[in-house]
């Protein structure tokens, strides 16, 4: 039996599945889901999974995700799948994708980088490697590693 069924089905909203075990809290923080939301959020942590070993699942009632939110999730959970639910049915299902360039999602960790000033530009990074995740700032060339990236999201 599918372990994810332990979490109740939702009527309308978004299911984020295949989040690496334990990373769902980071996903919630990216989506700004704090203790003060007015919709139902269900969370499954360390659910057994055939492909990931253990995974997390997040189900959010009455909320659909924006492009930049999906891009941020891709940094934390590059294999996450997103299902849009309407009236208990999956109307759309896709995987998040980490593009080769990451623009406007996170700031450069180098405090002395020109991209952290009031210049008319957006922070931009090249994805140097995906596993492990390394981003290179296109301005100052500083490399950001996973821990730094997650704490800057």
């Amino acid at each position, binding site marked *: 039996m599918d372990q994810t069924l332990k979490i109740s089905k939702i009527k309308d909203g978004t299911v984020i599945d295949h989040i690496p075990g334990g990373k769902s809290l980071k996903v919630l923080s990216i989506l700004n889901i704090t203790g003060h939301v007015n919709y139902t959020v269900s969370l499954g942590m360390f659910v057994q999974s055939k492909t990931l070993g253990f995974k997390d699942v997040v189900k959010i009632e009455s909320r659909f995700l924006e492009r930049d939110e999906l891009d941020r999730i891709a940094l934390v959970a590059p294999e996450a799948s997103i299902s849009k639910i309407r009236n208990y049915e999956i109307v759309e299902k896709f995987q998040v994708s980490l593009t080769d360039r990451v623009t406007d999602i996170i700031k450069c960790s180098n405090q*002395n*980088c*020109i*991209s952290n*000033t009031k*210049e*008319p530009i957006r922070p931009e990074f090249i994805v140097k490697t995906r596993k492990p995740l390394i981003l290179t700032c296109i301005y100052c*060339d500083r490399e950001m590693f996973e821990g730094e990236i997650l704490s800057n999201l």
Partner: protein
Amino acid sequence: MIKSRCIVSIDDVSDSEMNEIFDLTDRMNESLESGKSITTMKGKILATLFYEPSTRTRLSFESAMQRLGGSTLGFSDVKSSSVSKGETLADTVRMAESYSDIIVIRHPLEGSARLASRFTAKPVINAGDGSGQHPTQTLLDLYTMKKEFGKIDGLKIALIGDLKYGRTVHSLLLALSRFKVQVTLVSPPSLRIPQHIISKVKDIIKIEETDVISHVLPEADVFYATRIQKERFTDQNEYQSLIGSYSIDSELVSQMKETAIIMHPLPRVDEINPSVDALPQARYFKQAYYGVPLRMALITLLLGGEN
């Protein structure tokens, strides 16, 4: 021609472009020595946007442009420019674009030259961005090694002194990883090279780290000394004791190979004793001298060649 049209990082220069720059530097050098005047850049203007003072670098660029028959304009004092009124770098670059054909920028923040290159179609040369890159110094360092030894491959190079804050040495090490060289990093433990620099090169070239200079003395071909800045130390006694163990004097030079060379990006303070200046290994003044012909070559190639 240089494909990227901008020299922000040494990575903007391919291996073949580097050879092209070095060949033209040789010819510029010959012209300077023969006193032949060059007018290929007549009517062209080079802008120097210096957000922090560096007289040596600025004069070297201005001399290079004027030796080519071109002219220069710019600022080296932020207080007297519109920058102090809070203008963005992007706007200053857009303004400079309409006044000049090529822009040289020095700025205290990292990534500033890359930003500048995004706001103009004119060539941009990075003359130092914070603790980031200083590619013309790096080209000059590599040119000096190539000129003195005929090739860079096979050299044993010791980088000595402040390897933590010294940006010239970061740029140089990254560039050296493109050659088959062995590098020894000699610095006090508190001034070791940052891990993010080491991680970029450690799988590519052979690197050793040490805090004693003595064991590289008989082996290295190149001794590249950098300035240990007094301002970095709260305890001046610590500075004095460090500078003693890392400064090069004639006694140390006597333990070096006769063919070894000593380089330094200048200005030096206590890192090289003046008694070394007359010894055959001293090359730092020659290295500085190459700055003008090298920048002449670079400007020429960025502005479309010799014709």
